[in-house]
């Protein structure tokens, strides 16, 4: 059975790009453009992993991460942000991994593979 990934990012182009990249990797991919939609999707779609942007209008990724950890402690979360500052100040340490966005998403794909291989 295909693993399901929820991509949370406010930028439509990034969501589309990640859908394409991760679908090519053999995953089912669902997306959310903000925190409210993300929580609906977590309940409805029961994803195996979440990729989460941090800087988003409204509720930011760190706040979403905190809520995920309060309710779904074991759900793997990978922060995928253009900024590395949240890694260096440890504020995103509750995520399973932190990836700085790159054009080929190679590190993100590798980490997803690694985390989901532990899960299966």
């Amino acid at each position, binding site marked *: 059975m295909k693993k399901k990934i929820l991509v949370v990012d406010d930028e439509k182009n990034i969501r589309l790009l990640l859908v394409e990249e991760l679908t090519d990797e053999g995953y089912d991919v669902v997306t959310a453009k903000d925190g409210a939609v993300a929580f609906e999707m977590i309940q409805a779609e029961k994803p195996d992993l979440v990729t989460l942007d941090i800087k988003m209008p409204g509720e930011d990724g760190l706040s979403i991460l905190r809520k995920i*950890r309060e309710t779904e402690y074991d759900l793997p979360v990978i922060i995928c942000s253009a900024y590395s500052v949240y890694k*260096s100040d*440890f*504020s995103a*340490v*509750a995520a399973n991994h932190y990836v700085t966005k*790159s054009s080929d998403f190679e*590190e993100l794909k590798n980490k997803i593979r690694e985390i989901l291989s532990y899960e299966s």
Partner: protein
Amino acid sequence: MNLSESPLINQKLAVDDHAQEQLHNLKHADIIIGIPSYNNADSIGRVIKAADLGLAKYFPNRKSVILISEGGDHEKTRNAVNGLKDKNYFEDSFIAKPEFETEVLVTQYRGTSGKGTAIKAIFEAAKILDVKAGCMLDADLRSISPEWIELLIAPIIYKEFGFVAPYYSRHKYDGTITNMIAFPLTLALYGRRVRQPIGGDFGFSLELIESLLSKDVWETDIARFGIDIWMTTVAICENFRICQSFLGAKIHDAKDPGNDLSPMFKQVVGTIFSLINIYMDSWVRVKGSKPTAIFGFESEVAPKPIDIDVSNLIDKFSDSVPKYMPVWRKVLAPENCKKLEEVAKADPALFEMPVDLWIKSLFDFSIAYNLRTDGMDPAEIIEALVPIYYAMTASFVRRTQNLDSYQAEELITQQCSYFEKLKPYLVERWQNEKKGDM
């Protein structure tokens, strides 16, 4: 382990009495994280936080201790530790506190002043606590993240490795002693490609530290900056299982080799040379080199650029020629000494140190240091190598100034293959010297 039952009880311990008592009260821990420090109170808080969060995140059910081994202002470090006592950082990062709260202790180590003795105190604590695994972290780290704890400890606990060497992304001019000497010599002599054999952040098993503590080296230069290369070499030569963990960028207080690194150079290179003699039976037989497994994902990170003053290095080399030529004539093979004189006479604008001359010089110096001192003090021999190292570093900077870090890394790999190719030169000269001694 009860202190009275500890085999360490009859030795003069580096860990101080107060810390011993605290360790005794704790009785046992699964993991120890050691932080050797010398007046690093300003930066140590970040390292402690990362270590504590890393333990809680990756080893929440293990009993753990963080021990700071301070060689400088003990009180200032203790104040920095006390400032973190409320552990607010757990709430800020919404990581659940672990089953056993990590104890953070400070010891003012006793014995020969230097990093090696700071590490010895941590090893003694690890033995007293009978830990399963531990890791060491530099106190001046600015790039550490809690993941480092998993990367350094997990291979010991889950994969039964004895030693986990760090694997960093570094700027091409950071770690010149590593790149010019420690990495290629370890690779060529002992046949293992350990990219950062003098990295200050590493993981260890209890078996490895028992072996290290049993050796009578703690009053020598090894007890200073030689400790890292000594541990790596012992782990390789005594067949401990070794791996590397990719830790990302190492951002710390890096130094220009022309300004700051001379004492470190002497202690590291002195230790490397001493080890060449100790493990002669091992390296003479080794041909080629094996890769070392790497854990963690090698991500693209951009280490902070480091400036090296090339003119300063060339000037230091050229200015030292009259002073050191008498020593070079005694130490170097005549053809190598002649070539070095030619390098010194070259126009600074065209300055270049040939790689093969550098390698043969290193080999000649290692022989002189161990077998043919000609009445010279070994420290004097090492001191005479420093200007040649400056020349090689200047030459490396010149060759790589238009290269990115990946291309510079390829050049270092290429240089390593020259070390391997020229190893028979060392073997032959070493054996001839030995025969001459008999």
